[in-house]
């Protein structure tokens, strides 16, 4: 079974090619079916590999499959190979299963759109690229997938291309991540030059053998890789693209900008964690950066009025938690939060999409209201998702993963407690902003006409994910709640044993309390109408600042965009060309001067000749 591993990325890729070539001929029904079934098959394959893995893990829990030699040169070779270990298996499972659900959801959501088959071609291509990214056994191949998902993200964000703002958002998302990717590319070049290979395992072994912890090389290399990861995962300072990326269709946001692609940075760090361990300062920086991100994003989430933007900021914030875990070396915690986040955030996005579908694509939460009775399915799904996001104790998956992270952070050395405190603050804010949305959208009076109904292709993904968001947390529980460690044991071969370090009792207690407090705040402010009033009154400068994501966009506009545009405008007509035109002008001036001598009069001609003769005789006689 496991020998068919290559089929997992190949299936969606193949289907993407088919859809790309013959999509317009096939019609929407077949296109949708082909797109979904291919990912479905990949999911089935992944699940069966996963089941088989649990019962009969391969030696060292690693399965490698070399497809072909990509580049073989003396001193430098890259094999196109797949590398399956628990971490990548987990990623593959999440990508294929959630991907399949989202495809299914899309078949109904995108009904009647122009470019239906194009949509599925892109989406399949994305899944294939993402799978390649996580399965790659070589950083260069990983980079192929890495850029591949970036391009698919670009294409899908700009899917409704007739609206120029969508195009702008798509370009922004691609360019910002591209900037990060260049840093990552530089990192790859550095690693491959210094270590002679980009094969991840060989490279890690080489790095550990040649570099000492804390030395310059690993610090530089990991910094470069990290910048790549930060860009892809929308972390400060490269986070500005994610809110804009919400211009794409909602299932796309669910798949790419919540569940899978944006967590690629987390995956990258986990995958190369041995290298990061050689650079402790970088890990510290990750942790600090993560805290900044999660707070900035959480604050920004508090003042958004577009439901998808709230979710976008919450994605940023939650990935901040993952990075926080990475910063303190709690790899399984990060992966666990990745898993739960993928489930509940996909659920939230899909639900948001499902709501908007019925409200004539309305996304402003203040234009909604009282939808609880009108859309019970959406209400419950959104509630479960929000609870999980807010980490509502015990009943939600998000609680367990966030608890695992915060526990690990609190146990970390000195700055640990400060980071933890920020994490708790973030948790309060998370609960506040998401329940702000829940209360605003589902309680109160009905504001917008509701039309249509949900088909089975909407319902199945929502229900499945809701169930997931409720139960998936029980894979790993803290001591007081059964001390289940299936998840970390599963990952142990790849990232080492994870110890739940003992911490003061206050820590889990506050972890319990923070979400509840947040929900309380949200409810109180909802009841006294603060949320609703904020939309009608002139927002304060501070609010505007926070709403725009703490001014990063403006800063970057001033710092980069404006100078770039000025430069382009200055250079536009090719100053070098004018330089050569100057030479041409010179020649023409000389031509005119000389030509003026040809006046046609014999006497004048004779004078010129006379002058020439005098000069000649003079040169010969007196030199």
């Amino acid at each position: 079974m496991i020998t068919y591993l290559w089929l997992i990325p190949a299936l969606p890729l193949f289907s993407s090619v088919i859809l790309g070539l013959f999509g317009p001929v096939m019609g929407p029904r077949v296109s949708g079916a082909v797109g979904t079934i291919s990912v479905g098959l990949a999911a089935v394959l992944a699940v069966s590999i996963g089941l088989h893995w649990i019962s009969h893990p391969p030696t060292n829990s690693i399965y490698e499959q070399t497809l072909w030699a990509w580049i073989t040169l003396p001193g430098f070779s890259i094999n196109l190979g797949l590398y399956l270990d628990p971490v990548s298996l987990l990623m593959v499972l999440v990508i294929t299963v959630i991907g399949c659900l989202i495809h299914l959801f899309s078949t109904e959501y995108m009904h009647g759109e122009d470019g239906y088959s194009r949509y599925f071609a892109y989406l399949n291509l994305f899944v294939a690229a993402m799978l390649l990214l996580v399965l790659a056994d070589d950083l260069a191949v990983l980079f192929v997938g890495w850029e591949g998902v970036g391009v698919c993200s670009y294409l899908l964000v700009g899917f409704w291309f007739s609206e120029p703002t969508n195009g702008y958002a798509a370009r922004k998302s691609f360019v910002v991540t591209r900037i990060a990717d260049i840093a990552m590319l530089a990192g790859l070049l550095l690693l491959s030059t210094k270590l002679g290979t980009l094969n991840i395992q060989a490279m890690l072994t080489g790095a550990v053998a040649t570099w000492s912890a804390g030395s310059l090389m690993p610090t530089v290399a990991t910094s470069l890789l990290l910048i790549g990861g930060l860009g892809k995962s929308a972390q400060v300072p490269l986070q500005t693209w994610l809110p804009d990326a919400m211009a794409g269709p909602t299932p796309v946001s669910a798949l790419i900008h919540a569940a899978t692609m944006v967590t690629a940075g987390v995956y990258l760090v986990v995958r190369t964690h041995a290298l990061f361990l050689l650079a402790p300062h970088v890990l510290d920086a990750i942790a600090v950066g993560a805290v900044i991100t999660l707070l900035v994003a959480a604050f920004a989430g508090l003042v958004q009025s577009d439901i998808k933007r709230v979710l976008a900021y919450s994605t940023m914030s939650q990935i901040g938690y993952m990075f926080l875990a990475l910063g303190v070396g709690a790899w399984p915690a990060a992966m666990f939060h990745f898993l739960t986040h993928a489930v509940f955030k996909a659920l939230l996005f899909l639900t948001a999409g499902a709501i908007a579908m019925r409200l004539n694509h309305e996304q402003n939460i203040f234009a909604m209201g009282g939808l609880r009775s009108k859309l019970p399915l959406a209400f419950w799904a959104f509630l479960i998702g929000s609870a999980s996001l807010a980490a509502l104790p015990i009943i939600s998956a998000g609680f367990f993963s966030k608890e695992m992270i915060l526990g690990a952070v609190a146990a970390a050395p000195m700055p640990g407690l400060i980071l933890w405190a920020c994490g708790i603050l973030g948790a309060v804010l998370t609960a506040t902003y998401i329940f702000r949305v829940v209360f605003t959208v589902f309680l109160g009076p009905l504001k917008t006409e509701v039309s249509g109904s949900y088909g089975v292709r909407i319902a199945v993904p929502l229900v499945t994910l809701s169930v997931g968001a409720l139960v998936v947390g029980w894979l790993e529980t803290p001591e007081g709640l059964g001390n289940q460690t299936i998840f970390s044991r599963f990952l142990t071969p790849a990232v080492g044993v994870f110890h739940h370090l003992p911490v003061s009792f206050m820590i889990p207690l506050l972890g319990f309390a923070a979400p509840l407090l947040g929900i309380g705040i949200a409810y109180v402010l909802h009841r006294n109408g603060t949320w609703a009033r904020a939309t009608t009154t002139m927002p304060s400068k501070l609010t505007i600042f926070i709403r725009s994501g703490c001014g990063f966009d403006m800063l970057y506009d001033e710092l980069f965009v404006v100078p770039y545009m000025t430069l382009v405008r200055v250079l536009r007509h090719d100053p070098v060309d004018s330089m050569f035109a100057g030479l041409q002008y010179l020649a023409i001036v000389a031509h005119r001067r000389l030509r003026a001598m040809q006046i046609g009069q014999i006497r004048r001609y004779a004078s010129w000749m006379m002058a020439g003769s005098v000069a000649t005789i003079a040169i010969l006689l007196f030199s």
Partner: protein
Amino acid sequence: MMLVWLLVIPMLGGLLAWPAGRFHSTAPRIISLIALLSDLAIAIPLLHSSADIAMPGTWMAGFNAAWIPAFGMSFRLGMDGVSWLLSVLTILIGLFAVIVSWHEIDNGAGFFHANLLWSLAGAIGVFIALDMFLFFYFWELMLVPMYFIIAIWGHENRRRAAIKFFLFTQGSGLLILISILALAFLHQQQTNVLTFNYFELIQTHTSHTFGILITLGLFIAFIVKLASFPVHVWLPETHTEAPTAGSVILASILLKTGAYGLLRFVVPLMPAAAHSLAPIALWLGVASILYGAFLAYGQSDLKRLIAYTSVSHMGFVLIGVFAFNIIAWQGVVILLVAHGISTGALFIIVGSLQHCLHTRDLSRMGGLWGDMPRLSSFGAFFILASMGLPGLGNFVGEFLILRGAWAVAPVITIFAAIGLIPAALYSLVAIQRAFHGPVDETRDEHDFGMRETSMMLVLASAIICLGVNPQPILTIASPALNNMQPQPTTAMLKEMGAG
């Protein structure tokens, strides 16, 4: 002898095509196709042959005959992996050029195809000549037909563009002539033999300054052809004004002759001098990458935009050549082929756009995806390919170049890599302005038909193959590139790596 046929067939084809155009406008097209296909049939089997005359190094085929004995100039040809790749690329692109001109060129088809075939023959000659004067002869020879193609069948400002093209390339060509003459006479002083044989001249010892001067002459000429900053100025105008087939040949083949010249002559002939020039060359490469990218962003003429991207890409080639190692050179070869394919395809697409929209102005496009989905998707695909999307050919080339250059000059490599960011900007903006945006309802639909679609599919699969499995190309080029790296260079490289 096969190599001679490789040159003779297109030459004769051209001679035949010209008068044939008088009888029927399809006749020259058929003749060109036949000539190029038979050329291809000659070229392909050479891959597995080996030269029947003795030449140092690894050669697939060789030929030698006396030409101008008074100067020791001979008609010496030789084909190794790099020559083979570029020659086959030339023939293939030539085929595409014939096909795209099928409907575009409707007057003077005979003369057009004659020029097309002659310029291709000249380019092939450049790629396989091993006598330096013969090389120069072909180098000049391919200009004239190209000049006609631009000047007669080009767009609005074709006259200016054609003359500019010719002045730049020919003027710099004279520097080649002076350089090779100087080299040959120097060689004569040392050995009492006047010869232009590549293998003999490669053993000439030069003093430092003189070597640099000779190399500089060659270098300037080649970077003019390569269209590196600051001598790129002929390229945007020429590419823009040339007819589609002309742009395709210019971008896909003629630019490559510059890179080929650098690889084949500048580097092996005087490695020490080339090394002294390397810093300048590398910085020029960086400047080209960035400058080309900035300017591409600012253009509103789609063809001009693509032309500037060529400047940018050729900057990578320049860096790769002067990184002096096999990895970078392999990258150069891949990038040359990939750029030939992707840019060729882009010019075909723009040509077809112009054919139905009668404009190349981006501000008058937009929303084409709605009207012409096939054209637009291929357009977007090739723009992304030329942007260096991993998994496609151009990326492999750029990656290998950067990888090779990093070992020698990390700072320059970083700057070059930064150039990939503006590359993304101009690529995406081109897609946005041409294909995305609101649909213009008043336009007629002229999407790609079977002919164009199949052409595009072939090119697209080629670029994918190149990206997914570049190894065959690397294997073909490998012995040739090893030949080009003389022993002292390797030693020097180690020195540089240490320092």
